[in-house]
């Protein structure tokens, strides 16, 4: 029997359905809807790949999957802490938003197959290549983990370009960090769908306007050297893929992270099933070439 109060258990949990309590070290308010929670590992060794996710929740409110916003490898925090970015959309996430520094968030994981930047899975093969990151909205959160991981080992990669878009200037995430990323050797192109929502203080938006896919045609890409990564809302994928095909990027060089409803996280409950694939275990990161037998994936 495992009994957890507010302290970490010494032994592992016996059931893959049993979450562990992690201390919230910091809560950063990113926008009206999104907050970044830094969780202390409390001596527990969490190792993960970018693109993997945790089931996080609060007893009494339930659990939901959240992708990891932190880098791994050389970019991992020395104390094992990591960050989850949570958008307030429902009962659980609004309850999580009421939590403060020093409170507890209950997590299970990490689960799934992430971007295997250093390893030997079919998702390796990013090293030495130019990388084009395409993120839409909250898709920047798992992308941030990948970008930080890659920037942590900058010299192993070719040219890095990030194209990212948001609905409006008020919703822009990680604008400050973006300057650091640029300074570390990554080009970044930001676009918004609508320049001025209502009484925005950012009314004087001077940047690019239009959906993410409008930026791609103007990029200079060497298709044989480039790996493209797409993370965004479901509607974005088809258009982003098409514009990458126009640039002659092969299916094998396009990586995507798919969003699905998930309940168990361990390939049992059936919610994330796409054809014969359990996205929570065999995904959520796929190569486009792997999706050819899964017509309802996108």
């Amino acid at each position, binding site marked *: 029997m495992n009994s957890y109060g507010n302290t970490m258990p010494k032994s592992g949990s*016996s059931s893959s*359905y*049993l979450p562990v309590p992690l201390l919230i070290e910091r809560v950063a308010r990113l926008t009206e809807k999104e907050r970044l929670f830094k969780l202390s590992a409390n001596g527990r060794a969490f190792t993960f790949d970018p693109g993997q996710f945790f089931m996080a929740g609060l007893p009494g409110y339930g659990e939901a999957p959240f992708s990891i916003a932190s880098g791994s490898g050389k970019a991992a925090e020395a104390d094992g802490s990591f960050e989850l970015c949570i*958008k307030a959309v429902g009962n659980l996430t609004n309850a999580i938003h009421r939590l403060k520094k020093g409170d507890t968030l209950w997590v299970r994981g990490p689960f799934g197959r992430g971007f295997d930047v250093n390893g030997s899975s079919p998702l390796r093969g990013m090293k030495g290549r130019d990388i084009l990151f395409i993120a839409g909205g909250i898709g920047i959160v798992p992308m941030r983990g990948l970008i930080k991981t890659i920037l942590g080992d900058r010299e192993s990669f070719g040219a890095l370009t990030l194209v990212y878009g948001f609905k409006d200037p008020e919703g822009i995430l990680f604008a400050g960090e973006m300057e650091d990323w640029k300074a570390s050797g990554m080009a970044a192109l930001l676009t918004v769908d609508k320049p001025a929502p209502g009484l925005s203080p950012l009314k004087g938006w001077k940047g690019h306007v239009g959906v993410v896919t409008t930026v791609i045609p103007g990029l200079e890409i060497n298709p044989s050297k480039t790996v493209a990564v797409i993370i965004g809302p479901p*509607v974005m994928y088809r258009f982003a893929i098409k514009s990458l095909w126009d640039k002659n990027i092969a299916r094998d060089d396009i990586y995507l992270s798919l969003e699905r409803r998930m309940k168990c996280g361990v390939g049992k409950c059936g919610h994330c099933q796409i054809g014969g694939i359990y996205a929570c275990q065999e995904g959520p990161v796929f190569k486009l070439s792997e999706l*050819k037998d899964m017509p309802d994936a996108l």
Partner: protein
Amino acid sequence: MADKYLKKEALEKLIAAVSSSGGCFIAPTTDARQVVFKSVEKAADITHDYVLARNSYKEFVFPQTEVVATFAVRQHGIGLTGKEVAPKETVIFGARPCEAASLSSLRAVFTWDFIDEFYTKREDRTIVMTVACTTGDEACFCTTVGLSPESTAGSDVYLKETADNGYLVQAISEKGKAFVEKYAAVFEEQAGAKTKKLFMPEKIKGIDLAKITGRLKNTGHYDEPVWAELTRKCIGCGACTYVCPTCHCFDMVDEGTAYEGERRKNWDSCQYDSFTLHASGHNPRDTQFKRWRNRFMCKFSIYPDKFASKGCVGCGRCVRVCPVRLDITEVMEELSK
């Protein structure tokens, strides 16, 4: 192990012996005019004249609701305690040979990657005592999916009714042999009793499983109008998934209040529109025919390909329970073309 013989009157002794050793005896019994699997305390409660119990016995191995943890607000925050399952010996008497084949399919799902101990521990303590069918109805189609009343796969103990009001007893699995030995006092030596004739459902001529699987392998079928046309009348009630002995989908929900309650695994159904609904409002399976297609593919493509097991055992429960008479065999026939 040589075949044994069990007198119907000896069921009373068997129930008593199982209960006194701390076990639980499940058998078909009549409740509100329906034959259902339920815990029974005396042999008189067992219904013998039935085709199949309306519910599948999977609920005794994979309960409709299962507490995985309890939580309560304590002085400094919330405490959560994992629940360990410590199942009793559970005897399922009167399972049919079709549904006996389903546990290996469920086990495949619950153990293919992570091990779900809530399932495995229960299944390890379950004894399936199958009674071969001497009766059937028009919904039965086990012979069409490669099973028959003579199939012993999945049964621990396989019984055939005899003309002299008893059963010919064959212990099939190791678990079944140990069971027959443990309760040896109840069983007699077999003395040449004549078994009753089994009911063989007629094989549906238009259905070819290999053709169905082959057609589902070619992803072109996704765009075919056949799905929407055949399944238009489905109202998405999910009854088929609840009575199905191989359907395994579940939800994880916190029940109670924010102060005290349980985290539970509850049966869910891929036929519900909320099953795949994202927080953003996007739904990958946004229409009923896509959900129906998913269930059909799960039975005839995913289970056989991914888990090398049967997704459909031909028990016909989904056909009997469907409120709009959407018959899976009609779709199977269409997909066999």
